[in-house]
Structure formats: C-alpha cells, structure tokens
C-alpha cells in the first residue's frame, strides 16, 4: 500500500494527472479532490497548490467549472473534465503506465549494460 511520505518531486510531477483521475470519476469540488488524493496516499494537498493547478487545467480547456448551492454552508465550485480533458487524462494515464513499467523493469534489472567511456 502507500508508503508515505513519497518524495515531493515525484508528487509534483504526477499531481496534475492525479487530479484529472479524481475528476474522471465525475464532477466534484476542490476540498473533495484534496481529500480523495489524501485518502489515496498522496498526502495533504493544500489549497494553495490545488487551485492554481485547477486554474491551469481550466485555461487549457481540460476542465470546466460551475458554482452549486451548498447544503447549510457556502456554495461550492465544481470542476468537471471536458471531453478534451478526458482524452488528455487517458493519454497521460497510458503514458504513465508505460513509463512506470519501463522504470520498474529498469530498476529491477540486476545486470545493466553500460556504455564504456
């Protein structure tokens, strides 16, 4: 299972894909995204990190937003993947899978051919 803390530089590189993964399950709001990521071993994602990322996804046309009335509290801004966003998520997820498999195979090799200088 998760072995926190993951190196922060790994998380930074993967955060955008992880956020799109949460949104691929359906529209949701910022704190719920943050809580889902924390439950899945990504540690605490602060609002100061999450919302600028969501803003960049929105600027890129991968996400749309909508304010919805809250239940007993202030309204919440929901984020939804667009068709382009879903396609981008699937593309990046497949790429990540290949990269992870390649990296695991490389790291697991006991014999590595090295080029002689």
């Amino acid at each position, binding site marked *: 299972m998760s072995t926190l803390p993951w190196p922060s530089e790994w998380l930074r590189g993967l955060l955008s894909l992880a956020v799109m993964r949460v949104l691929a399950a359906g529209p949701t*709001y*910022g*704190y*719920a995204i*943050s809580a889902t990521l924390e439950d899945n071993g990504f540690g605490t994602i*602060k*609002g*100061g990190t999450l*919302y*600028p990322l969501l*803003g*960049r996804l929105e*600027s890129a046309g991968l996400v749309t937003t909508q*304010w919805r*009335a*809250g239940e007993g*509290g*202030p*309204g*919440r*801004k929901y984020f939804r993947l667009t068709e382009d966003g879903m396609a981008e998520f699937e593309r990046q997820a497949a790429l990540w899978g290949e990269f992870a498999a390649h990296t695991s195979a490389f790291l697991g090799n006991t014999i590595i051919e090295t080029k002689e200088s």
Partner: protein
Amino acid sequence: MADETTTDRQWYDEFTLSLRYRDVPGTEIGDAVAQVESHCSDSGESPAAAFGDPRAYADSLEFPRDDAAGAGHWLPVLGPIVAFLVALQLGIPIPRAAVEGTTVPVTWGSLGATVVIVLMMTMLWFRTRLVLENRLVGGVTIIGGTVLAVLSAALLRESAFDAPVLVMTVLVVALFAYAAVGMWRQRATLNDPIVDPRG
C-alpha cells in the same frame, strides 16, 4: 495579538488588493475569494494555513485576461490620462500668446516636462504596487517626477520651436477631446465591483 477573524480579514484584503494590482476583473476576484472561503469552510483551515501567503497565492492564479495584457489593454486607459496632462501643460502659454498676438513658444523645458509626465504615468501603471508601497520608489516617482517636471518647465525657457496659436489650440483641444472620450469609455473599467458568484 490579532484574533483569527481579524487575521483572516487581513488575508482576504491582501489577496483582493494583490488581484486588483494585477487588474483582474471584479467578477474573477469574487470567484477566487469565494473559492478560498468555500475551501476553508470545508477544511476548517484558515486562509493562511490552506493557501499560504496571499500575495504569492494571488500571483500563482491564472486568469483569461492575463493573455490579453498588451498595448490593446493598457493604451485605452493610460493614453487619455497622459493626453490630459500633456494638453494641460502645452495649453498654459496659449492665452498669453493669443492676447499678445505672438506665436506659442514650445520650450525645451515644456518638452522635458512632457517626457517626465509620460514616464511617471508609465511607471505608475506598470509598477503600481511598487510605487504605492515602497516609500523610496514612490517618493522618487511621484514627488521627484513632479518636481523635475515643474523645474524643467520653469528653468529650461529656451524655445525648441514656435507654433501658431491656431495650431497649438487645435492640438490642445484635440488632446483634451481624446482624453475626455477615452475616460468616458473607460468609466465601466473604473466601476468594477467584486461580485460573489454564489449570489
């Protein structure tokens, strides 16, 4: 020590001001503030705990209008103000020349003051925060610039060129007209309230 509410209020004030300095529209500021409030309500955190320094957070956000920033954005605002100040400055010697029946002398000092005015307004527009919050930079820009413009106009009395009263009057009236029309068109920009998207 300030209580939490006061600290939070200061955070929101600083955040809002930082976005204003970036010329972010009121609707987008309202959206960003509501987003922080909503997140903090859900997480139980203070804005400072969840979002860190308000200026840094404001700088990290992207807005659609950022892409439009360029001459097409600032010229309609800055142009009329500069035109008004230049017209005011060039117009001063016209009545005397008209009464005396001479040409209007445009002095090197007058031209120098015009350049200083343009530089001051440009600095104010592009480095608003620096000019207003840094006493040294603000003092040099506003007080120093004003003194330099006045001294330039008062001391450099040598004529760069003379122009007929009619030509100068037409030029000054045209500048005032451009300034008036430009400022009228920008009135909507000046009235840009922060709108909460939650109603």
